[in-house]
């Protein structure tokens, strides 16, 4: 295997290099598949979303902006393809500007630091005290970087419920991590 970076592979894909697409697939399809499996129980929908993701990459590799992790970009595309499939009417254009635009790396550095501490730190403990539905909402919005509308489709609940759960989850976390401070 050559040592081209992901971004270089994307450049080659944009130039019509099929071998580069295959390399990118070999690098990323596995973990994307597992992560999508954690979001949706239907193997068919997940497989379809993953396929659509790489078809979209083939058609639109040139639109990657060259900043941030290709991995995060790919995840952004695939989770939205999955949501699109969950809606039951996939977008005609596999990768419209709305999707490309939204699919920037979803974790900013502050959240990154926070989440790296999750496993062993206070945040982890605090998260674990939350009821499952609140945790799922946090995951969809914070970790997956989805809008409340997209999270609603993924979780199969109304958008209003996503918003209210998010509010509750945030205030509980704040109470746990910063006791004494009022919101």
């Amino acid at each position, binding site marked *: 295997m050559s040592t081209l970076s992901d971004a270089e592979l994307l450049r080659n894909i944009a130039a019509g290099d099929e071998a580069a697409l295959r390399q990118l697939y070999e690098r990323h399809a*596995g973990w994307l598949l597992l992560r999508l499996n954690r979001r949706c129980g239907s193997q068919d929908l997940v*497989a379809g979303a993953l396929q659509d993701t790489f078809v979209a990459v083939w058609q639109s590799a040139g639109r990657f902006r060259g900043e941030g992790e290709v991995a995060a970009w790919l995840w952004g595309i695939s989770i939205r393809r999955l949501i699109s499939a969950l809606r039951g009417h996939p977008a005609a254009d596999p990768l419209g500007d709305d999707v490309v635009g939204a699919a920037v790396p979803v974790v900013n550095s502050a959240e990154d630091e926070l989440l*790296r501490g*999750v496993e062993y730190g206070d945040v982890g403990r605090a998260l674990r005290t939350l009821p499952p539905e609140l945790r799922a909402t946090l995951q969809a919005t914070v*970790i997956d970087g989805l809008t409340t509308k997209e999270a609603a489709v993924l979780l199969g609940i109304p958008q209003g419920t996503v918003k209210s759960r998010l509010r509750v989850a945030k205030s509980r976390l704040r109470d746990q991590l910063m006791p004494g401070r009022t919101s």
Partner: protein
Amino acid sequence: MTWHLGPELLDRYSDGDLDLARQSAVETHLLACADCRQLTSAKAPQDLLTDIWQGVQIATARPRMPWPLRLLRKLGLAETDAVILSASSSLYRPWLLSLVGAFVIGVGGTMMPATEQRSLYLLFAPLLPAITVAAAYDATDPIRELAAATPFSKLRIALLRTATVVAIALPVVLLAGLALPFVGADAFAWLLPSLTLTLLALTLLTWWTASVTAWVVAVLWLTVVGILRSAQQLSAVDTPFAQLAFAVAALLALAALAIRLTTHHAPGGYA
């Protein structure tokens, strides 16, 4: 990076056996760590990944049909027939040929004396559908021998191509005739000669390649028009007698084509 995913954490993640907090931590780490992504990817079901890759390959390579064919598909054209038509490029070429033909007639006609305008239209209009039918075979002529040995009906291919080509060429030439002031009654007089020439082209295609056929038909028709012109009989084309003669000629060409078909020869090769 201060820590990496251990084997136990990886197994539990791929089995979906982590609580959300740990799962989120793993996923956040994965976005930033290529080594751990590689280890994680190895846990994914490889058979499924191979299947999905097949799907990606096909979806990216599948030729996109030109829009007129997509339209015909919506109107009920079978997918396999659409593939046949797109292989022969029999949609763009007839368009182009007919438009160029109509343009030549239009521009050429206005620069000529009145009697010549008539012969120009008579010369070009009936030829256009016949030439475009032959042209529909041009793209696939180099694989004639290969195509001959396949089971798909050659007659069906011929009908598909002819129908499509005529459906495109006919309106173009007809509209050009109606729009050009000097054509007049000839706007329809060319239809029967054109039918004859098209059937003749199809018959000749059972022997010859597309380019040879196109030349033979063109030269033949040029000769007919030339003889009529030198005899000052160009206007005879729209007499009932001439039209009847063309109808008889069309029937003869049809009979010849039928004989060729029943003796195992179709346009494009051994049937």
